[in-house]
């Protein structure tokens, strides 16, 4: 029996702009078990990062607001926590790694000072002990001559090194959940692999859960146990990674899979894309958000919003033609 660590139910985060309401996250639910990794994939503007920010309550008020839902972390609703409770779990139980390592460290402090600050926030120990913990963490993430680097400023590090430092900062607490918001997007490929390996390594040692937000399906296959595909603020497909790899069901997921360049591909042919662009999130209504771009579109898609249905055990999909009764034939591309 696996223990639930994070249970998100019907999360809705809207942004109130003068030109209309942007439904950035519109009814997303998922669960994450201890020691597991879940991936959230989708293209830019599909609501992945907003989902992550909502979980840690980093939505900038007053424009953004979490209007509905529960985020149960070990049974406690994060959205209802007092400020004090929230501060006590941030950095201690939950931490976040951001997309751009170049800007995610405070440029005016040495990295050692920043790490010590995090440690002393959550633990009542002396500065010396904190320093030792910090240096150990730096060694753990593979930073050579950690003692020297401890006194370096962020600008003296390369992107990959900074991402390591960010991971090290997450490691100084006794973390239960790491939210990685496109942790490898800004890094080059070889460094990407190393950072992912490091995350896996950390997970193995500490039994931490990871919520991996990415638009790279390769990362999902490599890292995750379950995966949620998001489109225009909604879940379109949610399944175990193996299941999704073997048997993807939603036309959007197919599009994503087809868009991945393959080694066997004829390099003279143009790359496959999903035609069009994501819809304006102010203009969602009672229809399938993907119907503008879906090659399988029919009349019902324009007039009715499909529900998220469990078609197989643990495999959810939101499409009118992928239900227990009907199936859609995937076209060759």
């Amino acid at each position, binding site marked *: 029996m696996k223990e639930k660590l994070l249970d998100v139910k019907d999360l809705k985060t809207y942004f109130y702009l003068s030109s209309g309401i942007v439904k950035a996250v519109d009814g997303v639910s998922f669960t994450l078990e201890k020691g597991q990794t879940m991936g959230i994939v989708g293209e830019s503007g599909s609501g992945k990062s907003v989902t992550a920010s909502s979980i840690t309550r980093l939505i900038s008020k007053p424009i953004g607001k979490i209007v509905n839902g529960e985020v149960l972390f070990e049974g406690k609703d994060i959205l209802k926590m007092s400020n004090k409770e929230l501060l006590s779990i941030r950095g201690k139980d939950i931490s976040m790694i951001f*997309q751009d390592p170049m800007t995610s460290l405070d440029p005016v402090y040495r990295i050692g000072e920043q790490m010590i600050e995090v440690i002393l926030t959550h633990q009542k120990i002396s500065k010396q002990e904190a320093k030792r913990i910090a240096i150990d963490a730096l060694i753990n993430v593979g930073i050579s001559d950690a003692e020297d680097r401890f006194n370096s400023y962020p600008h003296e590090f390369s992107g990959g090194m900074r991402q390591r430092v960010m991971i090290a900062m997450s490691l100084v607490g006794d973390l239960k959940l790491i939210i990685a918001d496109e942790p490898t997007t800004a890094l080059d490929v070889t460094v990407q692999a190393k950072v992912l390996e490091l995350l896996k390594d950390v997970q193995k040692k500490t039994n931490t859960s990871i919520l991996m937000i990415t638009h790279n399906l390769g990362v999902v296959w490599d890292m995750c146990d379950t995966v949620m595909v998001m489109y225009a603020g909604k879940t379109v497909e949610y399944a175990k990674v193996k299941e999704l790899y073997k048997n993807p069901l939603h036309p959007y997921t197919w599009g994503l899979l087809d868009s991945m360049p393959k080694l066997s591909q004829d390099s003279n042919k143009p790359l496959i894309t999903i035609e069009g662009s994501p819809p304006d999130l102010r203009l969602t209504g009672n229809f399938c958000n993907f119907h503008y771009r879906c090659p399988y579109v029919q009349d019902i898609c324009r007039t009715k919003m499909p529900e998220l249905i469990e078609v197989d055990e643990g495999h959810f999909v939101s499409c009118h033609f992928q239900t227990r009764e009907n199936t859609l034939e995937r076209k060759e591309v």
Partner: protein
Amino acid sequence: MNTVDLKDKDKLFLTEKKANSPWSKLKRNKTAMIGLFIVIIMTLLALFSPVFAPHDPNQMNLSKVHLKPGVEGFIFGTDDVGRDILSRIIYGARISMIVAIGGTLVGGIIGVLLGLISGYSGGTIDSIIMRLMDAMFAFPFVLLAIVLMTVLGNGLRNVILAIGIANIPGYARITRGQVHVVKNEEYCNAIRVLGASNTRLLLNHILPNILSPIIVYATLSIAGAIISEAALSFLGLGISPPTASWGNILRGGKDFLNTYPHVATISGLFILITVLGFNLLGDGIRDVLDPKMKR
């Protein structure tokens, strides 16, 4: 062998580090150094007025009224009641510097705090604070200071207060703008998600990151404060005579501008030079703190 000796490399690294330090960058900027030189001289005059001043600044001598500069050992001459202008200028430097720095501190501290609160909280609080600042901005600086002086009354402390209060909106605005830029940086989110409270984020992380434009603004507004003090004293609203301040000396000289122009000219020149010094230094500091300017 083509490899660099490790010691040489370290040396190279150190020289590089030294050459890029703010101080050495400032040192290469000649105009800024002139500014710094002027500021240091004025500060020394202010700190050690009794040492430098050859006479008592308030000692009148009706037999030596309106002496020309250089006559009878009075380097800058004497004024309409026979007081030594050089000594008065030196003691005046003290008042001017105290007012300038005090006013800047008062305005800076309150303004920066308001700007931090306003920029960070946004929404209604932001609107209220900024509209208040706009209202203060609507008054010309000197006019606002005059209004405050009329309300508060003369005296050194009140001059500092008036100039400080009149300075608040400038600081608040500049700080608010900078907070807006910095608070959405990813590291702020990272710091928040690692468990920092709003206060700590604001004071320990956002403030240090926005300090350089504020420092630059401060050096420039010190210059403005010197002029304001002179203007207020000139109008009779600032430091009350007989206490020497540059504005007071100027004011005393204005009635004899045709016959004995040296009184007003010399005190005016000191105001000019000091303001110029602070402006040059402020410009230099801005260039040094702007990472995009590497010279």
